[in-house]
């Protein structure tokens, strides 16, 4: 394992296009390892011993063959450029047990070559011409030894050390040391390492060099980004791609990698729907391109690709069984199923396995994804094997989470007086508050009205534990490198009960190169097991509004208290759920094989083969103990549900790449095809009639088992895609991408569509005029793109008219029923989006400051709606159809990164982004005749709503008033509705990260900000006066004629209509802007002396927090989730990160 990799300074193709090639040449791999058994393979390689005596029998053998034979016997490796061997002669040789040196002398006799031996490498090069030799009058060759460290004095391994002009070099070992033999004393050494400033040093006769490398200022343009089928350096990129590094994801204590992207990427809007682990987040790139009513939420999701394999963002949670928080609503005939809730599939992905995430936004970047690129593309790349000494990285941290915010609710006294006042206002106190109806008013007539419980504390006030551990091993030799990572995450909830989401994950990546460096194979495997055990109630949080005088949760015997009155429970014990469980076990396997073979210079064949299996087993248990008497002892009510859902997909993507340098031009061509198949199925069983709670998870103990639902679906997808890139003079760029797609989601004749884009760029800073006149502008590029992408995210089989069995509903006359599945329309087509973008990218002061600004406009036409609303008189609520709505999204995104201060010991870096986004329904001919006429409005954003205009509380009557055409203050007709843009999305949003480091101490914090309006808590609360608690805000209610206030009088039912109208009015709109300290990380690197003493190569301790502070004027629980849903949690963890 003590292999020394050698750096090859002249790769055959340009780095920015072929990072894999560069990797190949960098580490000089040979294909030897064929078994996937990684460790065994290594042992094999290192254990092999070589003889120093060579025996050869060659007749007219090409030189390469002789080299191979010598390599096999000696363990030495030849290193040469293919070009140099063109002029060589064949070799005829017969030797037995010769020394290596003797064999080499014989082999190189009469060849126009010379060789040198360094370590176990035999460097071969052309003999220098006589003319050149004459100039070479310098001092005799010397050996140069050196050691390279970073700014902190720590040794740096793998640093490239090359001699300028010569085609040879070396890399440093684990101690940072290197040796260059037979070096011209006048030569210049170039020392480079990714992320560090390059150093050029004149040897000037010195034989020992000690060099300290400084971390390079992170320059946007040097980052290589992936555009899926090809990679490009940001400098030459004509499209809009943002890369988030894995390290920025891993420093946040979240278990879902998507959550770590929140606020980090301009134009990427992520909204958490709940603070419970594993729940779904809404992800949108540059707004909502499509009408969503009637569509699955996934219709607006970007396309996700993990290591080249598409990954479905659709939850696996069964739609057939009530899964509580992970619930996914049951399909309704004629409506689109699976409205996107359920466990997020990203909950199965360990953020620690991620190398980087790229967000592809404009047409130039997304059109190559054709029919699936409309909503943008998110590429997730997992960590790749790194050659070098075996290295272990360990990261352990643990902490806890708490709810971020609580409401200010009424106490018992205030609550009871609210209730009584409500009855008085309604004039029905006497008729109602009589024992006959006691059960209807238990809070007043049955319960102890002096009790007080803070239900927020009970329901969401708990501490949730958080623990995370990752260990990874990496290393490799010349041929093969690997990384293997193991991770564990456990996250609790803030609700009472033993609920947890736990994940174990394993990641493996193996890279192997053939001896001639032409064949590269890469295997990557991701496995995870997620065990989610969450409450079965969907809206637990509603219970925080329980009357404060509600009875104790447990009775004297420690059982759930039902506070029965005449045998009937007077309340629904909020902790009843704690006896129920919704368990979902998800197994995710992603296996991927990448092959690439260089056929000719510049021509490479590649294939990407992937197979993904994602499966979920759900168990939902409703024991009798969760029920109120008398049902709690009835076998029929002990129920359990079991479901299995599978999603299996394979992909085959062969591809040809061609690249050519011709004078000042550079061409890149790519052509490929995709075959993809996704099959999914889901089955659910319901069981009931258990004689005891302890039998409830054994389906055999049930007296009655029925199939609740069974579905299966197949999706086939086929495409041709291509890309042509052209660069002139390293500064004029043009990029063309196109794709022809076929999808089985469309009916016959409608299956294929064409998509494409053009991107152009001009790196104006490379023009001499700029470099002379504006030297402070170190980099400048203008780019623009235009193209068409599509969206087929509508679900399978929507074009087919079918009947399905009624699920789990018994039979009639002994046979099950068949019911029409949906209204079918085979005549629908792709939804198309036209994207246009113009951007400028600038670097100042040697790229210490980078600034980029994009201006974009996306227009989507031909809206494809799976359940375009229809009146129920048609028998169904909707039908799949194309609608002529034209939607526009436009905006500006600005990203800035700067190194404000950089000295030897103190660095301050800051990066930030801000997006201004506007959405508008430009046109919708015939909207009046569709079900959308009260949902969407031409000329307004899609998020605009129709509401009444609130004018205040009538000082005389004490009820809410609204602008109404009839002047009464009570809205009567739809004519009184106005269109309001308050809920149309943020006015602007973004994030700002600061990173400060002083010696070993590092402080990083990230502020996320959103400027928006939202609906306050009132919108989701019951009317003040009913048997539900309220915020203290309602104390300000109207009481007497003449009172001027914004809260109407309490009511028990009589004045509910104005309240409901109020909820439908602009009176509930409020400023929901916020600035959130999304995370803060404080870490300290132990000094090298200490670290070495404890036998580590690196050791860091850290303290991290997520959602630590939120600054907002919002009235309610949380401005992000809004309304009555579980607010995001504040998480604080502490831990260590160490390398061995």
């Amino acid at each position: 394992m003590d292999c020394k990799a050698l750096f090859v300074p002249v790769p055959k193709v340009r780095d920015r296009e072929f990072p894999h090639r560069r990797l190949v040449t960098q580490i000089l791999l040979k294909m030897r390892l064929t078994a996937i058994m990684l460790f065994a393979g290594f042992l094999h390689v290192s254990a092999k011993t070589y003889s120093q005596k060579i025996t050869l029998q060659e007749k007219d053998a090409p030189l390469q063959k002789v080299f191979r034979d010598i390599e096999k016997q000696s363990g030495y490796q030849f290193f040469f450029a293919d070009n140099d061997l063109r002029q060589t002669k064949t070799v005829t040789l017969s030797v037995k047990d010769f020394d290596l040196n003797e064999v080499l002398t014989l082999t190189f006799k009469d060849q126009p070559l010379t060789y040198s031996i360094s370590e176990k490498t035999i460097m071969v090069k052309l003999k220098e011409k006589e003319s050149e030799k004459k100039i070479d009058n310098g001092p005799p060759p010397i050996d140069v030894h050196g050691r390279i460290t970073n700014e902190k004095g720590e040794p740096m391994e793998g640093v490239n050390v090359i001699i300028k002009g010569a085609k040879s070099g070396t890399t440093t070992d684990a101690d940072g040391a290197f040796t260059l033999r037979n070096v011209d004393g006048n030569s210049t050494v170039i020392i480079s390492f990714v992320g560090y400033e390059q150093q050029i040093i004149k040897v000037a006769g010195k034989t020992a060099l000690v060099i300290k490398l400084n971390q390079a200022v992170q320059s946007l343009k040097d980052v290589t980004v992936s555009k899926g089928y090809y990679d490009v350096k940001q400098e030459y990129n004509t499209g809009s791609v943002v890369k988030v590094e894995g390290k920025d994801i891993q420093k946040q204590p979240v278990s879902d990698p998507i959550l770590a992207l929140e606020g980090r990427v301009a134009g990427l809007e992520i909204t958490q729907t709940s603070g419970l682990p594993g729940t779904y987040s809404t992800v949108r790139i540059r707004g909502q391109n499509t009408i969503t009513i009637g569509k699955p939420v996934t219709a607006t999701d970007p396309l996700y690709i993990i290591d080249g394999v598409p990954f479905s963002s659709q939850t696996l949670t069964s739609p057939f069984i009530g899964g509580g928080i992970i619930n996914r609503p049951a399909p309704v005939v004629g409506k689109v199923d699976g409205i996107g809730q359920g466990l997020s599939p990203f909950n199965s992905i360990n953020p620690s396995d991620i190398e980087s995430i790229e967000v592809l936004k404009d047409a130039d970047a997304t059109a190559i994804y054709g029919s699936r690129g409309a909503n943008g593309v998110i590429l997730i790349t997992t960590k790749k094997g790194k050659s070098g000494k075996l290295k272990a990285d360990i990261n352990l941290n643990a902490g806890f989470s708490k709810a971020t915010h609580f409401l200010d609710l009424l106490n018992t006294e205030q609550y009871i007086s609210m209730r009584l006042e409500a009855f008085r206002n309604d004039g029905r106190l006497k008729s109602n508050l009589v024992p006959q109806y006691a059960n209807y008013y238990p809070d007043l007539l049955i319960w102890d009205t002096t009790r007080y419980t803070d239900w927020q504390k009970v329901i969401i006030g708990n501490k949730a534990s958080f623990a995370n551990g990752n260990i990874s091993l990496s290393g490799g030799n010349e041929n093969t490198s690997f990384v293997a990572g193991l991770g564990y995450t456990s996250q609790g909830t803030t609700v009472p009960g033993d609920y947890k989401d736990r994940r174990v994950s394993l990641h493996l990546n193996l890279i192997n190169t053939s001896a001639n460096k032409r064949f590269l194979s890469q295997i990557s495997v991701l496995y995870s097991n997620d065990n989610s055990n969450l409450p079965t109630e969907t809206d637990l949080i509603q219970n925080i509004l329980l009357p404060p005088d509600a009875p104790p949760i447990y009775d004297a015997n420690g059982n759930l208290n039902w506070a029965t009155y005449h045998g009937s429970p007077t309340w629904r014990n909020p902790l009843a759920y704690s006896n129920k469980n919704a368990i979902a076990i998800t197994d995710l396997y992603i296996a991927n094989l990448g092959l690439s073979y260089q056929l000719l210079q510049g021509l490479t064949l590649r294939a990407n083969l992937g197979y993904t299996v994602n499966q979920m087993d759900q168990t939902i248990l409703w024991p009798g103990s969760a029920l109120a008497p008398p049902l709690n002892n009835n076998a029929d009510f002990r129920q359990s549900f079991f479901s299995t859902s599978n999603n299996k997909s394979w992909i085959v993507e062969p591809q040809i790449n061609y690249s050519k340098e011709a004078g000042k031009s550079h061409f890149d061509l790519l052509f490929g095809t995709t075959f993809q198949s996704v099959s999914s199925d889901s089955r659910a069983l319901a069981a009931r009639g258990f004689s005891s709670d302890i039998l409830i998870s054994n389906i055999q103990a049930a007296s009655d088992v029925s199939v609740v639902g069974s579905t299966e679906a197949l999706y086939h997808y086929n495409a041709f895609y291509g890309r042509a890139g052209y660069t002139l003079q390293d500064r004029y760029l043009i990029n063309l991408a196109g794709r022809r797609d076929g999808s089985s989601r469309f009916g016959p004749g409608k299956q294929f569509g064409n998509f494409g884009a053009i991107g152009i760029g001009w790196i104006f800073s490379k023009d001499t005029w700029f470099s002379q006149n504006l030297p402070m502008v170190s980099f400048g590029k203008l780019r623009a793109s235009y193209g068409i992408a599509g969206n087929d995210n509508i679900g399978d089989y929507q074009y087919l008219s079918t009947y399905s069995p009624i699920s789990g509903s018994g039979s009639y006359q002994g046979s099950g029923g068949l019911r029409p599945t949906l209204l079918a329309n085979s005549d629908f087509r792709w939804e198309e989006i036209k994207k246009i973008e113009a951007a400028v990218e600038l670097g100042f002061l040697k790229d210490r400051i980078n600034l980029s600004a994009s201006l974009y406009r996306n227009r989507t036409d031909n809206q494809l709606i799976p359940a375009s609303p229809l009146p129920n008189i048609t028998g169904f609520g909707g039908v799949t159809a194309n609608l002529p709505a034209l939607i526009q999204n436009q905006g500006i995104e600005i990203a800035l990164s700067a190194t404000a201060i950089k000295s030897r010991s103190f660095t301050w870096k800051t990066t930030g982004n801000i997006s201004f986004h506007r959405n508008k329904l430009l046109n919708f001919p015939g909207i009046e005749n569709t079900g959308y006429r009260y949902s969407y409005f031409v000329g307004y954003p899609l998020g605009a709503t129709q509401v009444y205009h609130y004018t205040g509380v009538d000082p005389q009557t004490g009820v809410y008033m609204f602008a109404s055409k009839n002047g009464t203050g009570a809205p009567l007709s739809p004519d009184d509705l106005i269109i309001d843009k308050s809920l149309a999305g943020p006015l602007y949003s973004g994030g700002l990260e600061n990173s400060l480091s002083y010696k070993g101490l590092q402080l990083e914090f990230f502020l996320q900000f959103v400027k928006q309006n939202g609906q306050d808590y009132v919108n989701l609360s019951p009317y003040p006066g009913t048997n539900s608690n309220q915020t203290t805000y309602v104390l300000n209610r109207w009481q007497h004629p003449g009172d001027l206030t914004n809260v109407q009088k309490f009511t028990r039912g009589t004045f509910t209509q104005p309240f409901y109208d109020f909820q439908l009015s602009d009176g509930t709109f409020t400023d929901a802007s916020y600035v959130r300290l999304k995370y803060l990380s404080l870490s300290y690197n132990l000094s090298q002396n200490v670290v070495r003493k404890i036998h580590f190569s690196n050791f860091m301790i850290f303290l991290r927090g997520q959602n630590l502070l939120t600054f907002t004027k919002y009235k309610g629980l949380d401005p992000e989730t809004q309304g009555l849903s579980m607010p995001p949690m504040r998480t604080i963890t502490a831990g260590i990160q160490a390398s061995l």
Partner: protein
Amino acid sequence: MRIASSLLLLVGLGSCKKFVQISPPSTVIVSASVFDNDGAAHSALTAIYTTMFNANESWLVSYQTGLLGDELVNLDASATPFYENNLLPTTTVNLWNDAYNYIYQANAIIEGLSTQSGVTPAIAEQLIGEAKFIRAYWHFYLVNAYGDIPIVTNTNYIPNAKLSRSSTAEVYQQIALDLSSAIQMLNLGYVNQTDTTITTDRIRPCKAAATALLARLYLYSQKYDSAELHASTTISDVRYSLAPNPGDAFLANSSEAIWQLATTQPNYLQTGDGNGYVLLAGPGPLNPQLSAWLLNSFDSADLRRSNWISSYSDGTNTWYFPYKYQVYDDGNNPNNRTEYVMMLRLAEQYLIRAEARVQQNNLIGAAGDLNMIRQRAGLHAIADSIAADKDLLLTAILHERQVELFCEWGHRWFDLIRTANINSVMGSPGNICQQKGGTWNPDGHQALFPIQQTEINTDPNLSQNPGY
């Protein structure tokens, strides 16, 4: 090179159109093949009954109209809009959506079987007959609950999405057309799962069911001669007789059942009505109780009072509830009864004929029919003074309907509307609405359900009922 050539081969595979043409999943059946197969067509029809039973349609209609009218009491917040006659276009009333979905399924069967030839003709005839009957049945409930409604007789959603409301008379005409057609097509007897063989289970509509519903339709549309004629057809049918004991009337295949819905889970015998009404403890928030107005309408000797009403008492308070259906989800099954949901029964036919006869001035015949019902209830014959007076006799019949048909398919509420008594009962002078805590508008608009706002939103030609 082997690697290279295999990679080249992969690239060269090219696009195949066949690859993206997939066959439908095995979990569904393509519509066209449903109506090519006797068994599948049968399943498509009986799915409607399964769904009607599972959706508790019988209980929902009686519960919601019972709260609206004077039969039930329930103060739970979710029931308040019904109880206080304060329905809003946003209040959830399942009837509209459910009924039009059943009508869609019926239309699909009529269309599918009229154009395909794969189904045995005799089976197709019975299935189309039943589908027409179902279409008529649900149009009848829609028109009585909502007033003028769109008539839907096909599955084409494009024109149907823009339908406007037809007048009640037009709806009645369509119902009469469907029922007359159904009478022609349906079997005389009750069919079993083969759709042609006759069985004793009265759970599929037969000729008599269509005739009985048509009698009711004619009564509602005041075509009294036709109402009498059709009611007589059923009354004279030897298969039907009033159950001697009222307590047995709602048993499966009772002698007065003209059409019932069977339970759909073989192991469970409870009906939606039983689950919804029977109290085993003091009422919880969702349990309705019988109102004093209804309880007080019974004569103390009435066997229906003792058989069809039960109560739960905690010693201090007593709560009364409908007990026509006695089997309850919680294992309450007195005498191991087997109950089906009663859809049409003979007692109503007597009352239809009685009313039709009064309207045609056949007071003697009317009193005879009325007394059949009273006699079974253990009551004496109607007083001669009443029997001799048309108005008094009509009132007596209306009262008899109230106590015979209470909490059953909305009869009481629809009777109040069709006899134009609703304003005087709910509003002044009866003031039921006020006593329930609501306000009755003299314009009587609360007699009809509001059309759901989502429907108004999605169908540009659909208007709201006045007053909402």
